[in-house]
């Protein structure tokens, strides 16, 4: 296993360099001049030229490419055009917020999705199965930005208007009075702020997991070893949650790796909608400002996390299925 992991990590290096290269050239060959963004068109050409030199945009693209690539090895990522600060500082500020959001969403996606899928499979063709099938298809085909806005409208705005208690906060990670709250209330405040963004981000993805789990579970329930488990006298609960679940989770684990990019791209929308101070907002702001170093570093970090997530999925795969051995 250790050997396999080492090989996988080594194998990921060309992939990561490839991704970095692609990000760099796609962005730098795109039309538009960052220098123009940060200057008044009435300025003398010489001043704009100076600005270009300051940003390093006067050099040939391949020089910039190697400089940029080199900045990775120093862990520096260069300077933001818009803020003039090191990109690394910006990322480190935004990363925790995104990780918190993605972590909770990931948990909700898999726990909720798998639980609903199991329930539906065990009660196949029941009314509940039908209702859940229709609603998961509903959420599965819904754009998350629209869902986010609707949830915000309903649980934040209208809820408050109707005078119902516990209207959920619609923006930010913490309330305005956060600093004055006791420790317990601080936790509560953070949790309340998580509800709507996490729900928005996870419902769409959980719907997919639920449909997939249901299918896998129905497949596994028909297997001979499930009949064997019942013939041993095991209660139905053990048959389903031990013998059937473990087997039907094997293909679902593969989805873990595939879902990470969806989760991160979903986070971009959700962060913008809910003013969540994470990487998604950073990347959107940076794109609008043609702040290439920030866009490149953020995209790269998303790619890195996806590669890492796939690695975790492969390891989990081997843990769940003893027939898989990476030697």
């Amino acid at each position, binding site marked *: 296993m250790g050997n396999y992991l080492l090989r996988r990590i080594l194998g990921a290096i060309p992939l990561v360099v490839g991704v970095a290269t692609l990000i760099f050239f796609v962005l730098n060959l795109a039309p538009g001049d960052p220098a123009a963004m940060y200057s008044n068109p009435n300025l003398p050409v010489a001043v704009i030229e100076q600005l270009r030199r300051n940003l390093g945009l006067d050099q040939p693209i391949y020089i910039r490419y190697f400089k940029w690539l080199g900045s990775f090895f120093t862990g520096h990522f260069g300077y933001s055009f818009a803020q003039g600060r090191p990109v690394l500082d910006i990322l480190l500020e935004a990363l925790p917020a995104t990780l918190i959001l993605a972590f909770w969403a990931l948990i909700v996606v898999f726990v909720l999705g798998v639980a609903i899928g199991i329930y539906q499979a065990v009660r196949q063709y029941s009314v509940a199965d039908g209702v859940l099938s229709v609603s998961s298809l509903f959420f599965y085909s819904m754009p998350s930005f629209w869902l986010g806005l609707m949830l915000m409208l309903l649980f934040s705005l209208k809820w408050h208007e109707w005078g119902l208690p516990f209207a959920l906060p619609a923006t930010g990670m913490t309330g305005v009075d956060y600093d004055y709250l006791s420790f317990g209330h601080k936790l509560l405040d953070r949790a309340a702020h998580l509800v709507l963004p996490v729900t928005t981000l996870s419902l769409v993805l959980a719907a997919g997991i639920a449909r997939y789990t249901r299918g896998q579970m129905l497949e596994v329930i028909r297997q001979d070893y499930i009949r*064997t488990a019942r013939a041993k*006298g095991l209660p139905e609960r053990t048959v389903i949650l031990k*013998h059937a679940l473990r*087997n039907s989770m094997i293909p679902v684990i593969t989805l873990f790796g595939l879902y990470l990019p969806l989760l991160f791209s979903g986070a971009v929308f959700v962060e913008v909608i809910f003013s969540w101070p994470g990487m998604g907002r950073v990347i959107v702001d940076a794109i609008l400002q043609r702040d290439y170093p920030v866009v490149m570093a953020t995209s790269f970090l998303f790619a890195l996390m996806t590669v890492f997530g796939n690695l975790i999925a492969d390891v989990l795969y081997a843990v769940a*299925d003893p027939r898989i051995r990476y030697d």
Partner: protein
Amino acid sequence: MGSPLLEVTELRTYFRTDGGLARAVDGVSFHVHQGEVLGIVGESGSGKSVTSLSIMRLIPRPPGEIVAGSSIRLKGEELVDAPEKRMREIRGNDVAMIFQEPMTSLNPVFPVGEQIAETVRLHRRVGKEAARARAIELLGLVGLPDPEERVDTYPHELSGGQRQRVMIAMALSCEPDLLIADEPTTALDVTIQAQILELLAELRRRLGMAIVLITHDLGVVAEVCDRVVVMYAGQVREQGPVEAIFRDPRDPYTQGLLASIPRLGRRMELLTVIPGTVPNPVRWPGGCRFHTRCPHAWELCRREAPPLFRAGTGDVVAQASGAGTSAPTHDVRCWLETHPERRASP
């Protein structure tokens, strides 16, 4: 012989299908005594497996259902309407089952020892360590080499024969009174088949449990069974002691099955077969259910369903056939019993 261990009376198990009601098992009666090996023989689709799953109450419901009026008594206790909780105590403990496909009957993601120990923990309420020790002991009992090491292997690391031994170990873990073996050797190589049968026979001698051996292979029956029930189209065609069935098969279906066993040393151009296939359980043929394939069939067979006769006497066997305490009987469901003159003209 005392009262039987298992007494199945007028068992009917029906399935609701898109095509209509499939009467897979349709009025089957038989019994098994303590320590006896009963063979249930028949082609695929004759209702053997459904019968065994009905005894365990493992018929998927819906679409399947054990019809009211059926009776399955284990040591006098009625199982047909027993609560599910009671059935769970019986399964794996009083009655255990092994299946045809050792490749797919073991859970691929758990070590074999854990799968055995799980049953022990469930029914014997012992700790993890004791259950594991018992699993090792059982693996030794069924003749798996190096049981201390094999206990932690996964099913995919074992051969088909070894897996079937694990299945048997699992079934024996709580010393059941009755072992139902549903085609335990069908999926195995011939040499392994003999080993598994020998193992079952030996375990029966040592542990004194009764075995219901379901098979379509009469050779297997001849080797290990005391009595035989021949099933066709969801009914019992013929039942009796194994010598009687082999020496004097009275039902044309049993005769057909016996004739279709290929024999070494006998020159045959063609394998003898029973023409046709088992009919559709949604529409069993009227009259005698075998008449569509029977070489002896005449109008009576097409018109009227034969009852079960006591062999050679022409007497109709009363309900709950053979459950009596006297010597084992030989019963046949065929009109030839009352029209012996027709036997000569196939």
